[in-house]
């Protein structure tokens, strides 16, 4: 080597000593930046994984193969029929006077797939609309008219406050009270939960988008909106006695019975903000805002979720067609992130063969009893 190398090997050794720290520094800096980006160096930073862990803890156990939140529900199918009124607000194809088929899901709040239908304060409707221009719109709506909190951190604290105490198996009332004290905005939601009447059916429940979105019209003008699915089925309230007496799958049986008699309909009502209206999902907008009925959700049939088409759908509310965009509402972005982790976990459960009940390969303990 020496005969072809003009540089003495001692100089080469010196260069190595001089260069190595630089090389190590550059590689280490990149590796550290990557690890930091992944959250590996900051175990206290709130990530979608840690948020999902908190949800699993609040469920008391992990129900393999099921959604980590709103675990119990049924698949539904039908179509959305636009009436043309939404076209002035948004260029989304579904608002044209056409029928757009959907795969949807009606569910109850809570992490247990064996929750009691008539005891669940929160109900939800999720839709995946596939329009004839090849685009998709996924919605995830709830029966509450506003969120309890405005920030992701508070949402996380709310989840943790509802986690059962291992000693009693129930959430610690002191901890819940402390959460409510620290978050005065939660009072509005607590009041809704305590006093809003309980509809007798999914069919006569109003489902609210809750978060704020932006509709973009053909000319590119944006409107800040929220929306609700308001039932055409007449409202009727359940008494506390009816709720305690109802069987575990009360809502699913009621839905099947009603569908045997015909389709079920909800009007999609869009509320248009005035300039300055907040995107804070714990703050309802004033009642005098403009409301536009843009079409009708028509549910035609239902199937069990274990074998239904909705099972492997992540109803991420930020999967949107052109003409609809998300807003700066931080809860919206967090829902998208946490739903993704929940979806990954349950699909992994299924892949690993740990989800016999969730996939209908094994009867649920309820059915065996």
């Amino acid at each position, binding site marked *: 080597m020496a005969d072809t190398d003009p540089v003495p090997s001692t100089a080469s050794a010196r260069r190595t000593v*001089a*260069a190595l720290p*630089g090389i190590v520094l550059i590689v280490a800096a990149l590796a550290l930046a*990557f690890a930091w980006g992944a959250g590996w160096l900051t175990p206290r930073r709130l*990530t979608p994984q840690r948020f999902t862990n908190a949800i699993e803890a609040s469920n008391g156990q992990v129900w393999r193969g099921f959604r980590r939140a709103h675990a119990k529900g049924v698949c539904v199918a039908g179509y959305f029929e636009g009436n043309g009124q939404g076209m002035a607000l948004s260029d989304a194809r579904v608002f044209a006077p056409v029928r757009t088929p959907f795969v949807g899901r009606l569910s109850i709040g809570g992490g247990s797939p064996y929750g009691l239908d008539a005891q669940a304060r929160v109900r939800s409707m999720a839709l995946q609309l596939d329009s004839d221009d090849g685009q998709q719109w996924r919605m995830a709506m709830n029966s509450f008219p506003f969120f309890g909190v405005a920030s992701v951190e508070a949402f996380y604290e709310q989840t943790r406050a509802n986690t059962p105490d291992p000693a009693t198996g129930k959430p610690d009332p002191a901890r819940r009270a402390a959460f409510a004290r620290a978050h005065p905005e939660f009072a509005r939601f607590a009041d809704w939960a305590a006093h809003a009447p309980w509809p007798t059916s999914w069919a006569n429940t109003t489902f609210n988008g809750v978060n704020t979105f932006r509709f973009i019209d053909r000319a590119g003008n944006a409107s800040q909106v929220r929306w609700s699915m308001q039932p055409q089925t007449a409202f009727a309230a359940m008494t506390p006695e009816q709720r305690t007496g109802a069987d575990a799958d009360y809502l699913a049986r009621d839905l099947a019975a009603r569908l045997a008699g015909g389709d079920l309909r909800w009007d999609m009502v869009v509320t248009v903000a005035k300039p300055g209206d907040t995107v804070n999902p714990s703050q309802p907008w004033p009642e005098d805002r403009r409301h536009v009925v843009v079409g009708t959700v028509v549910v035609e049939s239902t199937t069990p979720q274990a074998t239904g088409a909705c099972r*492997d759908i992540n109803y991420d509310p930020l999967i949107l067609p052109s003409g609809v965009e998300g807003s700066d509402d931080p809860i919206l*972005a*967090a829902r998208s992130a946490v739903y993704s982790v929940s979806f990954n976990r349950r699909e992994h459960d*299924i892949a*690993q063969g740990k989800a016999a009940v969730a996939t209908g390969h094994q009867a649920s303990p309820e059915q065996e009893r």
Partner: protein
Amino acid sequence: MKRARPGVRFNPVARVLHWSMALAILVMLFVGVGMVSSLSLRPALVELHRPLGIAILLLALLRLANRLRHPPPALPADLPRIQKAAAHASHWLLYALMLAMPLVGWAMVSAGGYPVAMFRGFDLPAIAPHDATLYAVLRTAHGWLARLLFATVLAHIAAALYHAWVRRDGVFRSMAGAAIPLPRVAAPTAEPTETNPSP
């Protein structure tokens, strides 16, 4: 030290592709870890991740075609055999991962039942059936292949700097087009460096 023949470089197409993809892949790796670990940035980062991934796939195909038509300059004859083997293996691993990562990602998004959204109003077709087990396998593969790609990129950077600063054998310059001098404080020598090409 026997240098690669002075003036022997990767062809200009290869050099442009290398440096633009180096930037794109590093950005992509950081976007990828960021979007799965952030409660606020996910929507914006996912929107960037998918089209950038497809762009890398197209560039990688172009680069592979260019490489097969224009073989790269030979490594220095005196490079130890084990380093030569490592160089060849890591380069082909990089090519394999540049092609596999976007394809696995595209198939994964398809198997998850998600639209393969590129930009508003334009989706790519699904290349895999909507299936829970297939999705889970591809999702796991995408994550581990990303870690492997990042580790290979780090090894590649370390080796490139070793050639530039320690061996000064023309290998770095064959891709860079010029040498990067080692900062003077770290190299207080007056030896000829890559900036002074031998005749």
